[in-house]
C-alpha cells in the first residue's frame, strides 16, 4: 500500500496546478449564451495546452493519460474551480464510444472537432416513457433509400440547442427482444426535422432540453458499432460517464464542504454541538468518497476496465451533496428561504444528483445484482 504520488505524478500535478493558476478563465459570465461561449473558449485553451481529451489515446489527439493522471486532472480542475470545458459530453461519452466502437472514417471525421470544441455533442438516450428502463425506448429509425429516418422524442438533452451532433439510441427492429433491437447513431442536429424545446427545471433554469424528431435523416455511415448493437454501445457510454465522476466529484464536494465550514464559522454555527456533529460527519464522508475513488482506481488499474463498483462513488456523491446543502440552508435559517441565495439554488439543484446519470435506485440494483450476486429482479 502506498498512497503517495510517484515523482512523475507529483511533477504532473505541479505542472497542471501552475498552468491552471496562470490560465484560469474566471467565472462564467451571466447569461446562458455568454457562459456557453466562455466555456467554448476555455475548451480551446485546454486543447491547445494538450489538456483536452486527456484520457484519449495519443493517436486520436488525446494525451493517453494514466488513470492516476486523469484523477489528478479532475481533482485539480475542481480545486482551481475551473469551469468544465464546453464539450464535456463529447469528451467523456461521445469520443470514447467512437474510439471503442467506431470505424476509421468515423474517428477521422468526429474526434478532433470534439476536442477543439468546434462541434458540440449532446446525448439522446432518455425518453418521456423510458428513463431508468432505457431499453424500452420507442424512438424509431427506419431505413429507406440507404439512409435512416428517425421519429420520436428525447428528453434531458443538455446543450441540444447548441449541439452539432447527437448520440442517439433508436429502435431499428420492432420485433427483436427489447435490448437487441436498438442501434446507436450519431445524428446531425442541424436539420429542420429536429426540434429543440427548453425544459425548465425546479431551479427555473433551462439546463436541459426536449428533442422532437419527425423523420430526421441519418446517413447509414453514422451508425456506430453496427445495427442492433445499440445497447452494448450505450452501456460503454454510461460506464465512462460514471467512472469519470469519482475523483473529480470528490474534489468538488470537498470545496463545497470548505465553503460550508466558512459559512458555519461566519454565522457562529460551528459552536453548535449538533451542527458540529453534522459537519464532522460530512467531513468524514467527503474524505471517504475520495478514498473509495482512489481504491476503485487501483482496482481498475489491476483489472483494466471500470467495474460495477464504479457505481458507489456516484451514489455517495449525490447523498453528500444533498446533505451538505441541507446543512448550509439549515445554518442560514429563514434567510435560506430567499430565492437567489447561492445555497438555496444548490439545495434545489442537488435534488437531481440522485437521479441524473443513473438514479440511486438503479445504482443499488447494479450493486445488488453484479457486485453482490443477488438474484435479478426481473
Amino acid at each position, binding site marked *: 500500500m*502506498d498512497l503517495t504520488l510517484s515523482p512523475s505524478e507529483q511533477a504532473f500535478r505541479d505542472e497542471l496546478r501552475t498552468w491552471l493558476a496562470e490560465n484560469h478563465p474566471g467565472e462564467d459570465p451571466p447569461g446562458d449564451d455568454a457562459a456557453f461561449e466562455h466555456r467554448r473558449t476555455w475548451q480551446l485553451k485546454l486543447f491547445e495546452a494538450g489538456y483536452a481529451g486527456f484520457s484519449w489515446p495519443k493517436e486520436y489527439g488525446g494525451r493517453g493519460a494514466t488513470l492516476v493522471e486523469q484523477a489528478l486532472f479532475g481533482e485539480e480542475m475542481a480545486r482551481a474551480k475551473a469551469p468544465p470545458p464546453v464539450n464535456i459530453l463529447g469528451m467523456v461519452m461521445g469520443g470514447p464510444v467512437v474510439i471503442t466502437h467506431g470505424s476509421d472514417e468515423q474517428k477521422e471525421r468526429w474526434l478532433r472537432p470534439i476536442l477543439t470544441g468546434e462541434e458540440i455533442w449532446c446525448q439522446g438516450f432518455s425518453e418521456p416513457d423510458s428513463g431508468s428502463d432505457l431499453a424500452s425506448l420507442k424512438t424509431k429509425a427506419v431505413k429507406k433509400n440507404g439512409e435512416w429516418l428517425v421519429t420520436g422524442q428525447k428528453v434531458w438533452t443538455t446543450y441540444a440547442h447548441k449541439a452539432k451532433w447527437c448520440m442517439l439510441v433508436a429502435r431499428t427492429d420492432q420485433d427483436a427482444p427489447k435490448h437487441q433491437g436498438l442501434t446507436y447513431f450519431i445524428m446531425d442536429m442541424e436539420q429542420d426535422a429536429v426540434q429543440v424545446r427548453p425544459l425548465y427545471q425546479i431551479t427555473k433554469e433551462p439546463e436541459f432540453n426536449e428533442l422532437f424528431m419527425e423523420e430526421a435523416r441519418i446517413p447509414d455511415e453514422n451508425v456506430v458499432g453496427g445495427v442492433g448493437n445499440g445497447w452494448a454501445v450505450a452501456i460503454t457510454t454510461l460506464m465512462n460517464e460514471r467512472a469519470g465522476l469519482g475523483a473529480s466529484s470528490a474534489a468538488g464536494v470537498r470545496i463545497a464542504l470548505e465553503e460550508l465550514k466558512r459559512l458555519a*464559522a461566519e454565522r457562529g454555527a460551528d459552536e453548535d454541538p449538533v451542527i458540529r456533529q453534522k459537519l*464532522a460527519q460530512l467531513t468524514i464522508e467527503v474524505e471517504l468518497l475520495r478514498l473509495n475513488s482512489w481504491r476503485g482506481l*487501483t482496482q481498475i488499474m489491476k483489472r483494466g476496465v471500470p467495474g460495477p463498483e464504479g457505481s458507489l462513488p456516484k451514489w455517495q456523491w449525490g447523498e453528500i451533496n444533498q446533505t451538505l446543502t441541507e446543512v448550509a440552508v439549515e445554518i442560514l435559517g429563514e434567510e435560506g428561504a430567499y430565492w437567489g441565495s447561492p445555497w438555496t439554488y444548490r439545495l434545489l439543484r442537488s435534488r437531481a444528483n440522485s437521479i441524473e446519470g443513473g438514479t440511486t435506485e438503479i445504482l443499488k440494483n447494479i450493486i445488488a445484482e453484479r*457486485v453482490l450476486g443477488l438474484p435479478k429482479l426481473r
Partner: protein
Amino acid sequence: MNFDFSDDQQAIKRTAKELLAERFKMERVRELAEAGKYDDAAWKELCELGWPGIFIGEEHGGQGLGTVELIILMEELGYALAPLPFLSNAAAGLVLNAAGSDEQKERWLPGIASGEARGTVGLLKDDGEAKLVPHADSAEVILLLGHEGARVVERDQAEVAPVDTMDATRRFCRVRGDAGEPLEGDRIPGISRVAAALAAELTGIAQRAMEMSVEYARDRKQFGRPIGSYQAVSHRCAQMLLETEGARSASYYAAWCGDAEPDTLPLAACMAKAYASDAGWRVCTSALQVHGGIGFTWEHDLHFFLKRAKVDGMLYGSAREHRDAVAELSAPREPAATVA
C-alpha cells in the same frame, strides 16, 4: 499510488483468514462465548506465530512490521469473531510504544510481544473508573488513560472487577487504580492506532454480516421467489456494501497514515473509528432485518456479530466522541482535542 496490499501483506491476510476459519468455526465461537472464555490453545498458537508482536520492534521481541499488518490481522479477527485477548494486548503495545519511557518499554513490551505477559488499556471516566477494559483480569499490566494523565498499573495493584457485557466474545472489566507509575509520553499516536485497529475489526464484522445476509437472501424464498430479488431487501444489502467498503477504506487509510504519514494519523483514525462504529452497528442491524425472525433467535449466530459490533463501537471512544475530535482536528483553527 497503490491503494492495495503488497504481496507480503496479501499473504498475511490469506494465512490469517485460513487459520482463523479453521480454529474458529461458529460452533467453537459459540461454545467459548457461552462459557465466557477465550481460546487459550489458539492464543498460544498465534503467539508462536508472532501475531501479538507483529507491530512491535524487533529489539523488544516483536516482528517489526507496521500498523497496516496489524489491521490486516484485526480485520480477519473481526471476520472470524475470534474470542481472543488480541486487541486488548495490542492496544497496550501501541500505547506503550508511543508514550512509554525506555524503561517502561523494556519492562513490558517483550511480554506483550510474546503474548506471555499481556497488557490492556482502559479509558478513565471522571469518576476515576475505567468502565470497559477488555481482558483486564488476565492481563499483567493495565494502562489507564485519563484527562488528567495516564498511568501504567500492574494488575495486582489495581481494582479489577469483571463485568458481563452484551459481547460475550470478550471478557470486560471495570478498573480503578492510583498505583503504578505515570505514562508521560504523547499517547495520541498510540491510541490513534488502536482506533484504526478497532475500525478494521468492525470492517471484518460488517463484511461477515453482509456475506451472511447475501447468502440468506439468495436462499430464502417467500411468495415463491428469493427474498434477495425484492428491492426492499437487495437495496439493504447494497447499503451494507457501501458502508462496509467505507469502513474498509477509512481503516486502511488510517493504518497507512500510521506507517507513512504520522501527522495525518490522528484525524484519519478518528474518521475511521467514527465511521466504522456506525457502519458496524448499522450493517449488523440491517443483516438482522434481512434474516427476519430467525435472526432474532439465540440459536442463530448473527447476534454475536451484532453485539460485538455494538461494543466495539463504544470501546475506546464512541462515534460521537470521535466526530467531535474530527470537528476539532479538521477545523481551520489549531487542532486541540482528541478522543483519549
